Every structure is written in C-alpha cells, then in structure tokens.
C-alpha cells in the first residue's frame, strides 16, 4: 500500500483497520541466491538495491533480533560528507546524494533533514586541518564553509565564547549535512525490499557458515539450515564473530559507544554541532530531545551499554560548549557495539572464501554511509567487482600499506 496523505485519510475513515504490514514475516525458504547477514541499515539497504538496481528477487536478510535492533537503531543520526582522503570523500558524497532522494525513492518519510553540520575548532592547527579538509571537499564540488568565531557566534550566540577554557576560534560548516530519523531508515529500506520480494527473517541468527571446497554453499541459523549461492556479511559490531564462522580474522575490535537523549524541549539548537576541545556532538530530534554523544568507552565490549566515566566526560564537554545546558536533564543513555577498524575506515570487499562478501569496520561513522554502503555492496555482490567509489575499502590494504586513516591514529582502534 503506497504511503501518502491520501492513503492516510482513506484509512482514517476505516479506523486504520486496513493497513497492511510494512513487511511480511515469512518462513525461511530452503534456498536463496543471496543471503545477507544483518538486518541493520546496511544489510537492508543492500537487499533493497540488489532487488531494485540489480533485479535480484531471491534474497533473504537474516536478523538475529528485530530489524534496527543494532546500531542503525541507536545512533546519533548525523549525516555528512566532509571527509578529506580521496579514498573516502567520493563514497560519502554518493551517500549524501542518495539521502537527498531517498524518501521519494522508497516511499517512506525518513525525515532527512539537511540542517547543517558544524565542527568547531579551538586552535590554529585545527583550523588548518579544517582548511585542508574543506578544500579537499571543494575539489570534488562538495559544499563546505570555513567560519570564523563571529560567524559561529552569529549562528549559536548561546555557546561559551568569553569564559571558555578553549575559546572557539571558528568552524567547518557543511550545510548539506544534517540528521535522519534512524529507525525510519531501517524500516523504509525493509519495506522497500519486502515489496520487491526480499524475505526479511527476524529472530533468525546466523550460527554457522557452510563452505564446499573453498566456496560458500549455505548457512546454519537459529531457524534451521538454509542454502545460498552468495553470502554477504553485514553485521557491524558482530563482524568478527560472523567472519570467524568462515575462519576469517578481521582487523577489527568491537567497542561500546554510548549515546544520550535529553528530555523533550522546544527548539533549542538548530543544526548539528561538534565540540573541538572535547568529545561532544549534539543535535535536536524532531521530537524535541537533544541527541548527543561523545567518545567510545575505550575497552573491548559487546555489551550495548557503557559506564559513568564516559557519561561525565561527554557531558563536561557539553556544558563547556553550552553553559545553559547545565539546567537541561539527560533522560536516557544507551550503547551500541562499534566495529572499530584498524585505520578507522570501512571494508567492503570479497573475501578469500568464494561467494563470501564482507561489509564491516564502520566505526561510529556508518549511519551516514547507509545508502552508499548498500549501493556499493549490492554492486560488488551482483558484479563481483568493487564499485568505483569504494575501491579504497579493500581488505588487503593493511598488507599493502594503503591504510585509509583520516585521523592519523594508526592501528589503535579505540583512538579512531
């Protein structure tokens, strides 16, 4: 059933009794051409684009819990394409372009809101780094503006400019950056994929990978064995676990990142802002809550929760940036399991096992990538060659020394 104001009115007359499920809950088939592991944003987007762009019909998405139960359903929803390395920027810009047409494309309002992403800087060195990054963006025609202190004050007069330990010197602004309603992304892709015949199997956990002389030919799941020709891993924080089922060891550590939401408030902060002298970024959900986060807790974790020191660390930075926040209350905190890669950049690649594909290593930056990740992963799976904007995301880069390290932190996952 197409979603529109009209269908909404029509259904209201029948007391909304006639809405059909946004996606079916089918029983697993015996066999699929392609099985995607992970009903998060990337897995569902991959299924959607495989069906829509590459005409594949016989696809299943395995989700061990409910769709969106992973990071897509618990992230701070910031989208941007302000990267500086040639291997990254074209990919993230493709993602931004896909966001810009997504809702009409999959007929679901995901509240894509290009309200602007502002990164603050507090030292000359930071400003220089922003200049390098902003110009890299301009090289490919991506929008970026370098703001001075007064321009920032203009936008956000209630930040701390006069009593700050680390005075705000300016910022890098991408106006096309913004936020997207996280759950709706999973739901929109799921509905779009389901409409095109994809089986979304919730409560279906991958427990084993069947290989036949170096080639994938099926999986074990909590809902039984299923055969498949191609198997696409897309399990984010659990990537190491599922890859290990095929004997692969990844350049990834799982870490917990916490996020928070405040009580609902009338419009308080217009766009997305990240603090440059501590770990804090914030935006306001359409519902009114201030959604904010900071750094990962720092220890390996598969628990979707963190501890108090990081709560304090993040909120100290928040109040340092916006003194009036002191009186606002934090409503809820939660965590997500990050697939932190060794150079802070993702992996979209084939593996040494024939027919087994890998999409992982998104760290805490993979939400913005969701459409492009699905788009490029679908391309790789369908055509068996990397999409041209994702050629830098190969697994062998660590062996050849072509790391993609935006932050220059090296092989220390918890510093990316």
């Amino acid at each position, binding site marked *: 059933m197409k979603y*529109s104001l009209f269908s909404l009115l029509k259904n209201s007359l029948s007391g909304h009794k006639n809405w059909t499920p946004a996606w079916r809950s089918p029983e697993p088939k015996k066999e699929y051409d392609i099985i995607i592991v992970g009903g998060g944003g990337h897995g569902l987007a991959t299924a959607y684009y495989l069906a829509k762009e590459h005409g594949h019909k016989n696809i299943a998405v395995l989700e061990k819990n409910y769709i969106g139960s992973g990071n897509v359903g618990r992230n701070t929803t910031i989208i941007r394409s302000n990267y500086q390395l040639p291997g990254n920027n074209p990919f993230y810009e493709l993602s931004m372009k896909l966001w810009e047409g997504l809702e009409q494309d999959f007929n679901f309002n995901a509240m894509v809101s290009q309200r602007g992403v502002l990164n603050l800087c507090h030292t000359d060195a930071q400003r220089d780094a922003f200049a390098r990054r902003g110009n890299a963006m301009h090289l490919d025609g991506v929008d970026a503006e370098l703001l001075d202190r007064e321009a920032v004050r203009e936008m956000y007069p209630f930040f701390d400019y006069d009593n700050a330990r680390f005075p705000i010197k300016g910022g890098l602004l991408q106006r096309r950056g913004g936020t997207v309603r996280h759950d709706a992304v999973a739901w929109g892709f799921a509905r779009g994929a389901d409409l095109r015949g994809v089986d979304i199997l919730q409560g279906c956990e991958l427990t084993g990978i069947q290989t036949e002389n170096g080639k994938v030919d099926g999986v074990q799941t909590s809902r039984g064995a299923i055969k498949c020709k191609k198997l696409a891993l897309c399990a984010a924080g659990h990537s190491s676990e599922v890859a290990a089922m095929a004997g692969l060891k990844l350049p990834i550590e799982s870490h917990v990142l916490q996020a928070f939401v405040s009580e609902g408030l009338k419009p308080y902060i217009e766009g997305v802002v990240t603090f440059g002298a501590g770990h804090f970024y914030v935006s306001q959900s359409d519902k009114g809550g201030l959604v904010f986060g900071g750094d990962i807790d720092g220890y390996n974790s598969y628990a979707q929760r963190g501890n108090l020191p990081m709560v304090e660390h993040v909120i100290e930075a928040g109040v340092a940036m916006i003194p009036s926040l002191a009186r606002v209350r934090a409503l809820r905190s939660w965590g997500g399991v990050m697939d932190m890669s060794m150079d802070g950049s993702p992996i979209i690649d084939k593996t040494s096992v024939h027919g087994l594909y890998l999409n992982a290593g998104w760290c805490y930056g993979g939400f913005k990538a969701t459409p492009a990740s699905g788009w490029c992963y679908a391309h790789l799976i369908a055509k068996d060659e990397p999409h041209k904007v994702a050629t830098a995301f190969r697994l062998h880069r660590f*062996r050849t020394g072509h790391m993609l390290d935006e932050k220059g932190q090296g092989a220390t996952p918890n510093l990316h």
Partner: protein
Amino acid sequence: MTGFRIKNGGLIDRDTSLNFKFDGKSFIGHQGDTLASALIANDVHLMGRSFKYHRPRGVISAGVSEPNALVELREGGRKEANTRATMVELYDGLAAQSQNRWPSLNFDVGAVTSLASSIFVAGFYYKTFMWPKSFWEKIYEPLIRKAAGLGTASKQADPDTYEKSYAHCDLLVVGSGPAGLMAALTAARLGARVILADEGSRLGGSLLFENEEIGGQSGYDWSQSVLAELASLQNVTLMPRTTIFGWFDGNIFGALERVNDHVAVPAPFEPRQRYWRIHAKRAVLAAGAEERPLVFGGNDVPGVMLASAMRHCSNRYAAAAGKSIAIFANNDSSLRTSIDMKAHGVNIAAVIDTRKGGRILNVKGGKGVSYIETSMGKIPCDAVAMSGGWSPIVNLMCHRGAKPIWDEAIAAFKPPDVGAEFTAIGSAAGHMLLSECLAGGARAGTMKSRVPATPKCRDEAFAIQPFWWVKESIGKAFIDYQNDATAKDLPLAAREGYGHVELAKRYTTTGMATDQGKLGNVNAIAILAEASGKSIPEMGTTTFRPFYTPVSFGAFAGPFTGHHFQPVRKTPLHDWAVEQGAVFVETGLWMRSSWFPEAGEDWLASASREVKSARASVGLCDVSTLGKIDIQGKDAGVFLDRLYCNTFSTLSIGKARYGLMLREDGIVFDDGTTSRLAEDHYVMTTTTANAARVMSNIEFAHQVHWPELDVQYVSVTEQWAQMAVAGPKARATLQKLVDKLTLNDESVPYHAAQEITIMGGVEARLFRISFSGEHAYELAVPADFGNAVARAIMQAGAEFGIVPYGVEALSMMRIEKGHVAGGELNGTTTAGDLGLGKMMSTKKDYIGRKMAQRDGLIDPMRQCVVGIKPVDRTMKMRSGGHLLKQSDAPSMQADQGYICSVAWSPMLNMWLGLALFSNGRARHGEIVKVFDGLRGHHYVAEICDPVHFDPKNERLHA
C-alpha cells in the same frame, strides 16, 4: 472537580504559609507541600498539556512517575523545563509556568490537532510530508519541531554550582520505606558501613502517607524512631533527596543529591546538586512498587488520579483532590482508598471493581471531572481514583542487561536475580504485604542465617485480577499520557508489522516520554501481547536504561565548567613571560607564550620583530613544555635503539642526537633530541603534544616487549625549566651566566649536552642544539629557578638587544629552515615522506621497522615534504590549500598534495610554506596551482627545497 485543604492532619506545617505563583497567578501553600499538592489544595487541577493533542492534563501521580504535571520552574539562568510538580518542594516565592501551550494553558490553540487526531495515529508522519520534496525542510519540519518538545530551556548560563563526590559502603539501601529502613537498621546494628538513600524529600517511603501499624505504633512513628536510631550511628549515612539513577559495572551506583533544589537560591559555597558515585560492596533495592493506571475512556481528564497518589496527597499533604470521588480498581487497595478518603470527609460516589464486572467507559468534563459513564450508567463525581495494580520498581536491577520476570500472582514483572551483590526486598521484590517487607529487610540487612525478629504489623489484603483495557471505552483511552499513545495505537503497530515490543515502542513512542513508561509500559505490553496473540512473558519488556529519573547536565559536569573545564598547566617561566607582556595560547593543557607585542604591534608585527632580532643578535624562548624523560639503567642505550629508528647506544657521553620514533605500523610517531649524560643515563625530549603518549609507549615497550632489559624511566618534564637561547649573540649572552666555563666550539661543540652550574652554583644542563637554525643553546635549570634565570639571561643579553620570542616566532623560524613539526608529523607520514628516510637503521630491530617496508609506505609517488612559495612573492599563502598540476582541473583524483604549514618569513620578506606533495623531492622547481576554494583563492606557487633560509646552515656553526 473541587480540590480542598483538609482541616487537620498530614505532614505540612500550617503555621508557615508560603506564597507562590503558577502562570503568574498567586497562591498560598504550606511548608511541607509540593507544588502539586499546593495547587490541588487551591483547587487548581489543569497543570499541563499533552505532547501531540495538547489535551488538558492534571496531576496523576504523587512522585517521579508524573507524566502530566510538568512545569517550567524558576526564571532566567535558573529556569528548568519539564520539572515534575509532584517532586517540587514548595518554597516561598516559588514561580512556575505551564508549558507546551499557546497562548495560555486554559486556551491552547495547539488543541486543534486533537480534531485531526484520527489522522495523527501512531507513525502517521512516516507516511506523509514527502511531497513536494523541498517542503520537508522548509515547511513541515519547522512546524513539527515547533509543535513538538515540551518545556523551553533557558539559554542563559546557569549561575549555580555543582559538585561530584565518591562514596564507599558495605551496604547501599535504595529506598527508605519499611523494607529499606529494616534493612538499614539491621545492617547498621551489625556495624556495617551503611548508606540509606531515598529520592523523597523525607525518609520513610510509603510510611509517610499510608496508614500502617508497626510494633504497636503507627507506621509513621515507627519510621521516625528507626531514623532517629540510624542518625545516631557513626557508620550510617542518611541521604534524603537522593535518587539512585543507575546501576553500573562493579556494583557502582550513580546518585543525584538535590542539595538545594528545595530553596529559591543555594546557600553561599553550597552546590545546587551533588553527583555521587557510590562504590557498594553490596546493595539492596527497596524501591517499592509503582501503582498502574487503568486504561479507559477519558482516563486523562484532570482529576483522574492514581488511588495511591490521591491517598498520598490527602494523608501526607492534607490536599484532597475532590469532594466526591469514584474509585476504579482491579485489586483490594480500593478499600484503603475509600477508608482514608472517607476519613477526610470525602464522599465516595462509587467503587467500581473490574473483578465484579464494573467498568468506566468514559470520563466527562474537559478540564476537570464532572461525571463518569459506567456500565451501571452515569455517576456524578469530581475526581476518580484508579488502581490497575502494582509494578515493582525493577529499573535499577535491569540496567546491566537482565530482564525482569513476569509473576502472574501479582500480575507484574519482578526483578531478575542478578546475584548477591544486589538484591531486591519489599514491594520492589513483589512482596506486597508489609510483614514480608519487614522480614525481607531484616534478611537483607544481615547476610547471616540468624535473622533478627521483626516487629509485628498489620497486613492489608492484597488480591488482584489483571485487567488491561476497557475495550468498550467511549473516547480516547491513554496508555502513555505524555506522548498521547492510546490503547488503539498498539494493535495498529502490531497490524503494521511493528509487533515486537521494541518496534512497537519506537513506532508508537510509548514509554519514550520523560517518565520512561513508569506508569504505562506494563499496560502497553499486555495490550500489545493480546493484539499479537502472545502471552505477556513472551512479549516481554523493553530495555530498562539509565537514568531512573532524568539527571541535570550540570550535575554530571560538576565543577568542571567554563574556564575550569580542564586544568591549566603553566610553565616555570610563566611569571617571567607575564612580565614580558606575553600573549598566551592554549597548547593542550599548557599555556605557552605565543608572542611578546610591543606597543601597537599585532601578532604578525610582533613575531616578525622577534625573529629579526633573534637572528640579528639573540632571543630567548620558553621551551619548557617539551616532554623530558629520564632514562637510566645499564640497558638504557639498547632500549633507546629499539624505541628510535636511529641508533643511540653509540652516542657518546656529553652528546645530544636528534631521534625519530615510529609507530609499530611504520608511520612516524614523534621526534626530539635525546642526550647521554652518563654511561647509564640518558634524557629524552619529546614534542609537547606527544609527551604523554611517548611515556606510555616507553612503559609498554619495556614492560610488555622487553622486560628483560635493565632500564628505568620517569618523566622529568616538570622538574626542568628549559630555555632556548638563539642567535649570533647567544654564546656571548650565556657566557655571562655560566660558572667557570668558557663557551667555545671545543668546550661546548655543536650537539654538546653537559651538566654545568650557572650563576654561582645553580645546577643546569646545557645543550647546544638549534631548532631556529641559529647558533643556539638550550639551557635547563630546576623549575623553581626558571623565572630568575630567565630574568638573568635577559639582563645579560640586554647589551645585545635580546628579545623574548614566542611560539609564533619559533614556527616562523622553523619553517624558514624547513624543520618538520606537528603539521607534517600528522600520523600518516613516513620517515621517507619527511626526508628523514636515511635515519632508519638497517642494523637493528626497532618499533615500526618491519611494517615500514610495505609497498604503500615506500611508494615513490607518496606525498613528501617540500617547500612552497607563491610565484607572486607579494602574495599571502594559507595552509590547507591543495596542490594541482597547472594543466589539471580540480578533482580529488588530480590532487597532488596540500600545504601543511605556512609562515611569513621576516628574513625573506614573503610567505613561505611546507607542503606534502606527491613525489615531491623529484619536482622542486615545478609551478603548481594552489586550490583554496574555501577562501575562494586560487594562485600559482613554486615547489622548492624545504630549507628556505640559510640552506648551507652557515649560521648554525657561526
């Protein structure tokens, strides 16, 4: 509905009257009131508007679960939105505003949405607002954002202060009702360190308002005698107004103490709130149980309250919600309610018991109850007391992932077993009988088998028959009051595929309001389960998360705000620099002197003058912030050989050498000069930025990789004040300070590192090294001598016109000389990229050697350090510009590199820079396009050798 002040009884002080304002209107209440009770006593029931439909709402609870009566409390920088009127202790002069309404609470235009409510069902916004595309950001979203949200937050800085503190105990008791009191008392008498915390303004829990009988006294009197004994004990800490908001790993509890929220303004030197981290060896959850609303038409009309809340208001605050009430319940507590309310002279219009088939179908009256429509017809009344049963307050016990367990007998979820560190007692454990609460408390208080006897008490009957939803309801039946989620939304969610309890929550927003579903969630789960043909335990709960109740940001930030966000680190020469008129700059936590302006100079003029004078005669620069690490032991040399890519074991005593450290992945990590003071004693210098990380790496390398080495290390960064004295007159200047040593190329050759004395016996270290490219020294003296020595140097250099110079001048000079620094050591460059490839030894293993050999790291096309200068020498350069071949159009593919550092060169009278440029060393002399789209500035520049000034280093040895 007609609330009134009950003539006598209760815990309010009728002799102290307090004036307060609500929406500008003045009222009078009493000491001991809450804002909610005072308003009820003043017959004010309309206290807020709901989130989506802007329905008129009144107070429904008497505590933290309140979803409706949220106000903006106080004004200016102290204003706080969404404050629960039920938790606000009344004080004289209190001022509160209602929220989420316009123009007024009574007449709210937003209420029109309720007309269209048939469209605004759960998730409606996902289905529309998509056309035309551009309208979302321009029209729909701004409208939605404006309509959404609750209170308005202040944008002024908060004038109050906050504190943090740690606490440690053997037993933490969460909740001070009968169960908690009994547990605390038992443990305290056994000598344990006990903390008893309760979010209430007074300790006592339900005994402050329920009519109970314990040990022959009233429950209240018993609680007071217990509290008196606890207060008298050294090993007990009583914490009223303290909410335990979360349970974390290691049995650590987060707590918020509302130290001064019950007064208009905190007393001087006192914080508004204090955030506690309580390390408890053991804890008990005695948090009680939350009464549940029943789900029926109009269950949100102001005047419909939880039965226990109505008792709470009248018994404790002497504020009766109405003159004639109806009671609607599915359990025995209706009896309590009618007895108590009758005793206050309130008429019981009807008792409607679902177990006898009684139903309320609708509540009539817009902003207050006028009558109810029931299965037995219309019944006039002015308030409704409802009880849908009791949910143990399990929240904290589920904060670490465990799920609560459904218990059919009490029709509620009970806390999971999370081990002996944290156990539940009282009604939090599902023990609804007072005797069980006391017994459980005593048991938890001692972990021994012999449990002390507990006082006799009267038990109220507790029997319940689950009842979830009056399906025949006329009018909306609410489940999540604040978010306007109705009973119909959940079946709709199930129908549309959002039947998983977590999906239903997100789709309908049930349980996502400021009360986090304390009242509504169990009703929601039951209704969702039925709609999906599942049992309640099959459906299960959503995830419980901190914070049990919302916590102000200020409390988490504590005193670390504004200028105190991070500590300030000052160098030993700080006072001297102030005397010299330095302008300081934050460098990490350090404050460094940046430039020393003379009258009328801006930073550029000042720094340029500093450079010229230093290069012309002599200058003094504070370099104390460089990391300094004492490295001793007989294997010190071997150890350094493994840390650095070049060799130090061969360094002769009394000499310094420039060293380069790699990360294990082959990328450059840090650099600095390290000197050998004795056979078994080196002193290493690191960059200011990396000092701490280098120290950690040294500790790792020794303790993990090579523990067999006999080496010891300690940071001596703060022990030494270090000064660079640079320029042709540096030697002449220093000569005047040093004791009996003639400075010349024999006594102190280039790269000398000597322990000497100056100024008649002050121990010092003299290094002949140069970052500026001048004939220069670095002089280190014990920190407390720093200011005096700096002054002495200035005096000694006066005749040569010595100048102090700061980091701006320093960076001009290093760029003139092509020395790499932070801009080039950016964590992605190799030794080769920096032109230091030759330093990489081939004779030994060292950190990073192996990985540095990977193709990608030795590719000749890598970007390496070059010099760059504008073709038009008068033009200003800025860092961050990218470099393109002249023939190429802008694109990332065509990108050849970028400018990392620039400076005005006072010596060459032009802007100079260092750049990272693909295959750069082979391309000196090439003219490139500088692309600076950010500042709309494109120009051509020449790639050149990084050493712009004095290429033959003649000045160094002059």
